[in-house]
């Protein structure tokens, strides 16, 4: 068994779009662009709230969530998701990825909070890509939620005239 403490030289932040950013340890409060190194400061004050100061410019930041090694960061009004990995966990991920099979199930989630107006599919039924599955009303607009895949409906959780939150699962589809 390995020791309690493991020597690590690098950490990786992997974006949800699979871009990899590496940071060497000990961790520095600066980022190197080309040959020059620029100081990064994480600050907080009453006027601006939390922000990052970089190259004389303030960028608003917010930590939306942090679960285990998964972080959602709001940076200059745009959210990014990263998993921070050690060289060891990176290796393990690569192995896992090789083992992954084809996506089998598709979960259709509410893209925004709202009210279910109509459910257009039933359990066991067939659904085609682009077909509407649920009609969701949000901010007084009716939105048709379309199926992104061809498949069979496994489960319908959405019920007409009920309210749903963002990301609530509405329909579960077994992909054909």
């Amino acid at each position, binding site marked *: 068994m390995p020791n309690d403490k493991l020597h690590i030289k690098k950490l990786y932040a992997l974006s949800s779009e699979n871009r990899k950013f590496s940071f060497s340890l000990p961790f520095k409060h600066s980022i190197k662009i080309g040959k020059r190194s620029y100081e990064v400061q*994480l600050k907080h004050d009453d006027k601006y709230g939390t922000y990052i100061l970089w190259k004389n410019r303030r960028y608003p930041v917010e930590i939306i969530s942090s679960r285990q*090694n998964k972080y959602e960061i*709001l940076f200059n009004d745009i959210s990014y998701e990263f998993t921070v990995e050690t060289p060891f966990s990176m290796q393990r991920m690569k192995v896992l990825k090789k083992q992954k099979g084809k996506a089998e199930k598709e979960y259709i989630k509410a893209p925004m909070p709202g009210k279910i107006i109509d459910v257009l599919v039933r359990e066991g039924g067939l659904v085609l890509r682009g077909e509407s599955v649920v009609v969701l009303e949000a901010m007084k607009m009716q939105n048709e939620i379309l199926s992104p895949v061809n498949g069979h409906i496994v489960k319908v959780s959405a019920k007409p005239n009920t309210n749903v939150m963002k990301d609530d699962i509405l329909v579960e589809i077994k992909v054909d």
Partner: protein
Amino acid sequence: MKIKRILIANRGEIAIRIMKTARIMKIETVAIKTAVEPNAMYLSFADVVYDNSEDVSDIPVFLDIDQLIDIALKMSADAIHPGYGFLAENAYFADKCIDNKIVFIGPSPDAIYKMGNKTIARKIAQANKIPMANGSEGNISNEDEAIKVAEKIGYPVIIKAASGGGGRGMRIVRKSEDMEKLFIIASKEAEKAFNDPSVFIEKYIENPKHIEFQILGDKKGNIIHLGERECSIQRKHQKLLEEAPSCALDEKLRKKMGDMAVLIAKAVNYYSAGTVEFLLDSDRKFYFMEMNTRIQVEHPVTEIITGIDIIEQQIRIANDEELEYKQSDIKLEGWAIECRINAEDVQAGFAPDPGRIEKLSMPEDSYVRVDTGIQAGSAIVSSYDSMIAKLIVKGKDRKEALLNCKKALDKVWIKGTKTTLPFFRMLVRHPKFQSGEFTTAFIEKDLEKFYYNSEYEELLAAWLATKLFIDENLQDNSINIDFRKSREMSPWLLNKRINQF
């Protein structure tokens, strides 16, 4: 001035906008305090506040005709300004005001009714030979009739709510197989939104520009236009950015469309401020769409290029004054752009992102005007719209206005909710937007990415995530990681990863 005290039957930025002009004109204003927003910014701009915060009914007071009339009488307001939305285009409300000897700051109930009912408006436009897209004679009562009419006009067609506006109850139909489903959806949506399920069908104009003309008319029959606004940047018929003038119009086309706009306003003896909306196709042919019988959200861009305070004109006209301008007095000078900064998540299909605004500061440069009803500490509540502020920027021409807009966008500081700012930062850098050659299909068809981030922003965000990981996982900031801890979390992580794949 006959009008001494105005009840503002609205909230947010437009309530403040009206009160600012009223103050200059030395007219008192009454604002209504509600339970939903008891500390709203607009209340501090009023001379008198009527406290209605005990009322917790589901229907906002701004939609309750009897209650509003009651408040106006109780507070001795001799006029009501409805703003936009709520009861601004409700003929019955305007009528009720008149019945109670309260001046309604807007057009006549008759004009509101005729232009509000799109099938009647179509007939009036037709009688006056205003160019229009082919459409059904009147309302369509069922799916079968809809299919028949659409076959005659030719697909694609658009189903519209007869009592509609603001993009609700509209559906584009491209083939007859979809008609039944979309007809029912449009009709249901129309009934919910406007209490009227009637819909009609029009030929759908592909990839048009949205061009609208600002109208001013007095009660003596003088009607002029204040030039056009282009509002082609929209998503699901909701406008996001407006500008004045439009780069699609030259003097000749401006005159032709402006004359038509005045003509249709004359047909309903229009007075007050109003907007005639047209679609302009790629052959520069234009089609009357509808007339909005109220002040519009985007009115500031017209104010900037004409130097005319439209709210002041509305009040003067309501006060029976004659228009002080003739058409030949109206000169369009410079360029103005308005960005609607809304609490919406651009990365999640512009889904509303209600919440409390923690920090808010807006640029104060001379080329910037900000209309807002929100300050730090204000909440964006889901019962109202998601607007935080209108950022209005001017320049001597479009190029300078765009440049100023880009600068101003970087100076806006909002914390607490996600906003449409990243969308506008992208837009002002987009070559097609810069060239002026964009249509209402721009967002749907021409965009791959709905937001802008500069080169190193993601890297900086990654730096922050890594810093947080270190702060949470690495002991005493050393270079060692507690391996036991990461092993403990691994089963959970493994499970989650397997589920995701």
